[in-house]
């Protein structure tokens, strides 16, 4: 009984925090006036791809890989099974934009305009307080990377992928595009052709890193693309938490973000990947994220998706060894005029594997939140189990949410379950709360906290605050006295 009170006391404190916090979207929708020193210009073709390869002075295998990927990209049609992607202006997008030629280990060495941008976003401060290491990417290139010495001494590698290819070519080659080949989908192929930046993180056998490592991605230019490629390798028995944050200013013309994230969780290792995405409403966000999870290893995906115009994202876990497990938690907010087509894939390829997927979405006004999932249990994945839970909250009298689970079960001893709930906060619900004395502020905070209650510990507070602010705005409209 005591714990019940303490939980509610905590809730009261959080309510207060939410109401009084003043993080605002305007805080990251600014753009600075940094002029890129180099760009390949608009459009994509063989020449552009070769140019990127030249600039990076890459080994031959990488150049061939890029050109092959380009062919695949050009051959594959734009997928039509999901959201409308006709707003992507392929021809007028700038696929490679390079800031000053710099990749510093100290913030002092980062050019002022770029440094100020990251400072405004709180990146150096975060690094100092909470992180074991950090990488910062600005448009197409990493501009900063640092790893605390204690981890470096233990053999941890953490830097942008371009640097890693130069400094640890053999290590990178073992993992590059193994989990996500360029043939996977059009956007993965595009990434293969023009990729630049992203992080490479290698955690040696048995090393447990107790603080998270973070990469912050910032797109500054208009109608640009960001195509980073991130690889995380948790070697046998290791443990790591890797975080990504991304923001961009709001422009009239659309930008494109098409990343690849590959995570390799070796035997008995544990990896957690957290991403908080705050892209502005002019960004198409089309990453491909996949983990290979080996015997008795554990993969956790935590995603907070606030921004973007369209997001298509289905972090996948290939459970390759016995007792491998994956846990996906995704919280999406589909604001007015935006589409979140998100979900998860779990492929059970070995016995006794387990997956748990929790997807929570909030749709505001005509924002569309879609859960799209794949669950596959191969023959022989005996006694594997999976559970999928989708909770949708609709903030408006007219919002809609959709759920498209897809199950392929070939193993009779496997067990799986789906749960789905839909709640709606419309005028009647809001009026009900207010008729008991709650202000719109309080009502929205309670709704946000209530919705996130079971996952609040996993989600950064900043995310909850921004979600609350957007919901509050919408409630102002619902509650308007006519």
């Amino acid at each position: 009984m005591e714990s019940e009170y303490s939980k509610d006391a905590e809730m009261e404190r959080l309510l207060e925090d939410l109401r009084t916090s003043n993080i605002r979207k305007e805080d990251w929708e600014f753009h600075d006036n940094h002029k890129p020193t180099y760009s390949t210009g608009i459009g994509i073709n063989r020449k552009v791809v070769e140019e990127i390869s030249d600039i990076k002075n890459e080994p031959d295998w990488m150049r061939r890989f890029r050109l092959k990927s380009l062919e695949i990209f050009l051959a594959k049609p734009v997928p039509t099974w999901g959201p409308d992607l006709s707003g992507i202006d392929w021809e007028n997008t700038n696929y490679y934009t390079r800031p000053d030629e710099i990749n510093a280990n100290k913030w002092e060495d980062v050019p002022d305009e770029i440094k100020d941008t990251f400072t405004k976003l709180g990146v150096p401060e975060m690094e100092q307080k909470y992180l074991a290491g950090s990488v910062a990417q600005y448009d197409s290139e990493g501009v900063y990377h640092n790893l605390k010495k204690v981890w470096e001494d233990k053999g941890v590698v953490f830097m942008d992928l371009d640097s890693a290819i130069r400094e640890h070519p053999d290590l990178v080659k073992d993992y590059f595009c193994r989990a996500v080949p360029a043939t996977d989908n059009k956007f993965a192929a595009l990434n293969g052709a023009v990729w630049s930046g992203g992080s490479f993180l290698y955690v040696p056998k048995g090393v447990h890193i107790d603080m998270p490592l973070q990469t912050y991605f910032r797109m500054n230019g208009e109608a640009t693309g960001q195509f980073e490629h991130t690889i995380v390798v948790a070697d046998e028995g290791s443990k790591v938490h890797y975080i990504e944050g991304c923001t961009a200013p709001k422009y009239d013309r659309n930008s494109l973000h098409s990343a690849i994230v590959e995570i390799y969780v070796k035997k008995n290792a544990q990896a957690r990947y957290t991403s908080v995405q705050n892209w502005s409403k002019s960004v198409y966000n089309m990453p491909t994220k996949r983990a290979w999870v080996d015997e008795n290893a554990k993969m956790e995906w935590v995603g907070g998706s606030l921004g973007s115009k369209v997001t298509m994202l289905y972090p996948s876990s290939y459970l390759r060894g016995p007792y491998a497990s994956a846990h996906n938690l995704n919280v999406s907010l589909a604001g007015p005029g935006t589409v979140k087509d998100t979900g998860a894939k779990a492929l059970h390829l070995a016995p006794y594997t387990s997956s748990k997927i929790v997807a929570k979405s909030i749709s505001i006004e005509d924002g569309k939140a879609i859960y799209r999932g794949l669950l596959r249990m191969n023959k022989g994945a005996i006694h594997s189990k999976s559970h999928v839970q989708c909770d949708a909250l609709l903030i408006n009298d007219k919002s809609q949410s959709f759920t498209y689970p897809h199950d392929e079960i070939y193993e009779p001893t496997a067990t799986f379950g789906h749960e789905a709930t839909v709640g709606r906060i419309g005028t009647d619900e809001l009026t009900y709360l207010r008729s008991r004395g709650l202000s719109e502020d309080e009502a929205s905070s309670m709704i946000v906290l209530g919705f996130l209650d079971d996952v609040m510990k996993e989600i950064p507070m900043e995310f909850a605050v921004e979600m609350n602010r957007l919901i509050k705005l919408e409630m102002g409209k619902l509650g308007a006295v006519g």
Partner: protein
Amino acid sequence: MPELAIRELSASVENKQILKGVNLTVRGGEIHALMGPNGAGKSTLGNVLIGHPNYQITGGTIELNGTDLTHKTPEERARAGLFLAFQSPVAVVGVKLSTFLRTAYRQVHPEDKVSLQQFYDRMKVHMRRVGLDESFMSRSVNDGFSGGERKRFEILQMVMLRPKIVILDEIDSGLDVDALKLVADEISEYYNDEVGFLIITHYQRILKNIAPQFVHILIDGKVAMDGNRDLSLRIEEEGYDWIKNA
């Protein structure tokens, strides 16, 4: 002593005029019944009184203790001491019942520094009395509640929030005889000189448990007749037609 004064109140919903000049005064210690045929505007009156944004006030005034509430927000009305037990309370998924009631209480009684534990202890006493299991505390507001459970929760909110003017809209619907008795007892227990009641009902049933001193008949958006308890008994015998034809 509280006084709710409704004067010449007119209101529309979706541009359709429903209330056409309602006059009614409810004071502390008084129990009023508002009866009327379907479509007379009974529930509209309840919604207009608490300030539901889908209803537009087109004329007249609502005053509580001399304060004009006509254009106030629902939360301002609640804080002034007005309470409506809804006919069909909506579910609010994710909002935990105990936290909701506690937060609401702090808004309507900011002066009371009651601790979380004391508040919950008080709440549990009343939950027992209205017949709601303690486990409801951690459930979402009205989510998955039966019709009867929703009504019990409305009454629980009433006793916990201690309003001055209570409007009960078809409080007996969804309640069986035993549950109705529990709810009626809780209402009677709460009733005192400092609280005025307006019981909106189509049938006489609830009035057997809670005896009104005043009965008003609402027909076509207007109070067509005022009377005492005898009037409600006659309605039960003869229906509303004789008033319409009067």
